[in-house]
């Protein structure tokens, strides 16, 4: 099958992880789509086969770069999609059976209408036994189950006789539906910036001062969107040491005609009293509403809390992670090269072993990420709208199946 996935993976790329999570999410989804389309489906338990295939690849992908949580998120989303589609197909089939038993001689048009309703009802009932119903899935289901009756109607009359034919059509159907849904997911990922940016005008008001840290494409688009709607406001950019992504952001903002002020990270506390709102991007949003964000973010969040400035986090839904940050600085952080802080030529001998005895006296720790606890976050803006941190678990329940969390957690714990 797809054995070269690890090579496909951008191995240890030095690229921007925060900027890159959208791209990685998309690529992961695309890879899984091709896995699904290449996977041969057996006659029985098609969903299981698909899930196993996706899990096997997903495990490798997650292991390839455990720090990029978006990969795991997308793998789980795809697994969730497979489960949902399977469930709706099964319930539709059951619905079809019931229907054909009850009203055998009704004409096709009526039956279609009825089966749609009953299929949805049965699906909802079946789901409610498995887990709490979610708005998301209910909304998702309507078009899917509307497409379902064709299957059941074609096989409905000859249910017992041509079971295998029905199965094969169902498996093809399942694969088709799953791929459709994954396509939608990819579409969501691609358009997440726009969807988030659409909400900009509701949050940024005239003559406000916005503070941000480092560079995030989501934030950039968000600010541009507000600017395009003729809002005039000013932006303070904290440079985001040690990688100084803020410099790039400032450059782009100025290019679009936004009044921008560049400050050092350590000046955030001094400047925060003039700020109306802090808007930042995130690397990942955890299940408890905590945020994994570029280093220095916790400082900004604390400053914002101290001065009662709203701290708004923008995150595409692919950044929603169903895991809890039990031990973030070890488990989910990434330590980068000390060369971002120090000049190798000047400091290499301070970190030497050869001349001194024992360990070097100078240690350099250069973490890429900070953990911002949920109580410091005022609002999350995702492509599905604005949410309170305490609502995150609910969103996550919409996007992920509980089964996958457990299974994947075993897989990630293996890393």
């Amino acid at each position, binding site marked *: 099958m797809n*054995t*070269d996935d*690890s*090579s*496909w993976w951008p*191995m*240890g*790329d*030095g*690229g*921007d992880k925060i900027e890159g999570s959208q791209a990685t999410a998309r690529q992961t989804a695309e890879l899984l789509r091709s896995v699904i389309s290449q996977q041969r489906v057996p006659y029985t338990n098609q969903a299981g086969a698909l899930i196993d295939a996706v899990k096997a690849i997903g495990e490798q992908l997650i*292991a*390839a*770069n*455990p720090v990029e949580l978006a990969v795991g998120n997308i793998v789980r989303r795809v697994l969730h999609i497979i489960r949902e589609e399977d469930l709706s197909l099964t319930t539709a089939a059951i619905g079809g059976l019931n229907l054909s038993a009850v009203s055998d001689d009704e004409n096709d048009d009526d039956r279609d209408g009825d089966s749609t309703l009953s299929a949805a009802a049965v699906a909802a009932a079946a789901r409610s036994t498995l887990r709490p119903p979610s708005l998301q899935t209910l909304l998702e289901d309507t078009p899917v189950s509307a497409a379902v009756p064709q299957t059941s109607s074609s096989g409905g009359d000859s249910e017992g006789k041509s079971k295998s034919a029905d199965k094969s059509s169902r498996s093809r159907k399942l694969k088709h539906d799953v791929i459709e849904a994954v396509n939608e997911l990819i579409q969501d990922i691609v358009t997440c910036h726009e969807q988030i940016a659409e909400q900009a005008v509701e949050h940024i008001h005239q003559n406000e001062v916005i503070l941000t840290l480092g560079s995030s494409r989501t934030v950039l688009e968000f600010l541009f969107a507000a600017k395009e709607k003729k809002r005039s406001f000013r932006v303070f950019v904290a*440079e985001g*040491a*040690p*990688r*100084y*992504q803020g*410099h*790039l952001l400032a450059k782009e903002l100025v290019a679009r005609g936004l009044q921008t002020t560049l400050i050092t990270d350590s000046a955030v506390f001094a400047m925060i009293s003039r700020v109306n709102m802090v808007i930042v991007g995130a690397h990942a949003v955890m299940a408890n509403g905590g945020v994994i964000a570029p280093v220095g973010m916790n400082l900004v969040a604390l400053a914002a809390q101290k001065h009662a400035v709203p701290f708004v986090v923008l995150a595409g839904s692919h950044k929603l992670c169903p895991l809890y940050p039990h031990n973030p600085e*070890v488990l989910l952080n990434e*330590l*980068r*090269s*000390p*060369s*971002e802080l120090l*000049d*190798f*030529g*000047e400091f*290499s*001998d301070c*970190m*030497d*072993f*050869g*001349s*001194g*005895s*024992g*360990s*070097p006296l100078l*240690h*350099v720790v*250069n973490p890429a990420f900070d953990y911002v606890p949920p109580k410091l976050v005022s609002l999350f803006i995702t492509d599905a709208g604005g949410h309170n941190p305490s609502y995150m678990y609910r969103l996550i329940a919409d996007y992920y199946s509980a089964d996958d969390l457990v299974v994947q957690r075993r897989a990630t714990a*293996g*890393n």
Partner: protein
Amino acid sequence: MGAQKKRAAAAAAAARVSEDPDDLARQPLQAILLADSFTTKFRPITLERPKVLLPLVNVPMINYTLAWLEAAGVAEVFVFCCAHSKQVIDYLENSEWFSQPNFTVKTIESHNIISAGDALRLIYEQNVIHGDFVLISGDTVSNMSLTQALQEHKERKKKDNNAVMTMIIKKSKPSPITRQSRLGTDELFMAIDPNTKQLLYYEDKADHSKGTICLDKMLLAENPSISLHNDKQDCYIDICSPEVLSLFTDNFDYQHLRRHFVKGLLLDDIMGYKIFTHEIHSSYAARIDNYRSYDIVSKDIIQRWTYPYVPDVKFCGNRATKLERRGMYRALEIEQSRSAQVGSFTVIGYGTKIGSNSKISDSVIGEGCTIGSNVLIEGSYIWDNVIIEDGCELRHVIVCDGVIMKAGAVLKPGVVLSFKVVIGERFVVPAYSKVSLLQQPTVHDSDEELEYADNSSGTVEFSSIQGTADQSNGEMTSESSEAHKPKLGTGGVGYIWSICEGGQEEEWRHSVAPIPEDKLTELSEAMDDDQELVTQDRTALSTSGELISDSNASEGDDNEDSKDDSVYFEKEVEATFLRAVEENVKVDHVILEVNSLRLSYNMTSADCAGAVFYSMMKLAIKTPHSSASELQQNTANIITTWQKLLKSYLLEIDEEIEIILKFEEMCLESAKEFSPLFARILHILYDKDILQEDAILRWADEKEGADESDKVFVRQSEKFIQWLREASEEED
């Protein structure tokens, strides 16, 4: 500084963003990876496994190089395998490198290649390189971005077809301690044009004792400004144009990349080929040349300078490893006793077991090792499947795969245990010893030894020539006395390779052990001396000070330059003269030879006269004699025989004065026997028309104002001078 650095970082980030897509896609970039270092530094390990497959923080070295090449946008890599080529090829075939999209790895195999030069000639013959290529050896670790260097190289090439190579350099600290402790190599001097970044001078084994380096004065004459650096480190990554390969073919005697090729190009101004440099700042690049740099690069990897090529990021099928606090890397499925202490900057490989009360710090432990209890491991490199029984002590050692250490064995700093050696119970392996299952090879005979067979071709580093010479001396003794009884304690298996005294001197330089205290103080003293030199001598160069070619500086350089040269010149002339005396060569021929020497050393005829005279007097004093008068007689004879030779250089009075001064110097220093005879020999010289009276008188006049001590000989020949004066007055 801070702002600059930030800007540089931002620029680097920007460059990285725009890295892959357009530029590199146009023409697929090729690379030549030499999977053979053509040196003997890693013996005895390299007898059994090629250097590029040795694990560096539990990953074979070649993977670092290949991973970097792939990330840098290289499309096609030719791996040149020589020593143990089968192993290298097998490894690559089973690795993931052969199945990468957009990255092809091809192997080129040859068995009778003994140097990098030969390898490149062979690759040229195969005609596989079509454009610019990256030349690198398989023991280089880097995370730099090639984009900028490549672009610079291409632009230069467009403007100037002779810009054939761009060398990657990196700043390091200029102090010899840093150099020594970091890389175990000699100091490197480079002269670079600060504007064009052209490399003008390259010297990697400057003589420490002299504290001077020689620059061609043309360098200063031709270039408006040059900066001389001793704070640069050669990364051994070169971007080359295809011409480089043909240059190697044209100059079939080029063997070593740096010593022959680079220096050859720099000296040869006929073809006008130029080499440029590209300095990297925030990224990392280093080559593993010896055990010390193996140690240092491993530590750099653990300290994450090489990010993203670090143990906890998967870049080439390395096992998943988790980074914990204080630089501790732990793979999965480790059995560690609760009482075992694992300290900072330690890597522990998959499936390793560690017993109770063991202490491990600053070390790398491979996969599947079993470590007993109460073991102490410090600053060591333990490869895969090693068994260390209870109570062993290991400090700053390298232990290869499959070694078994029986209980209580102790390894002193600098020990290297090659594959599958067994160390007996409570045996103490002395410091710096190398232990292998194979006996120390006597001569470079078997073809397995290609990896280091280049000793004969003279391409090894200076120190290793010494080393091998010493070793071969030592072998004679070891063969007879100790080789046949492996002294590794009860149950020990393996041979301790002998290092004899001279070798031991060098051992500390290249071993993984920390530099001994006394050597450190020695080095730092040397450094202090250097600094004194700098303060004393205004013309001495500051570490990287830009040197504008003002007259002052160049004169200073010239003086030192010529002083140095004149010593050689004198020796050569003396040798020529003695040969002439022995073989009865005709005077005309001797003149011819001395003239050619004069041209090659760029000397004046006064120098020749001085040198010839010096050799004559030397000969006279060496001729056996019993009394002063006999010596005088000898001298007279010699002067008579060779007066024609001497005269041919005495074109003007200045040269004659030079002779007198030389003679004076000799009498004072090297040939004191002459001092009582000074006046008489002066007279002989006058008689033979070698010295004119004008010269003698002028010499006397010049000496008039000198110190008393300088006047000894003037006094001695006072009568003679007096007589000369009177004679000339009479003539008037």
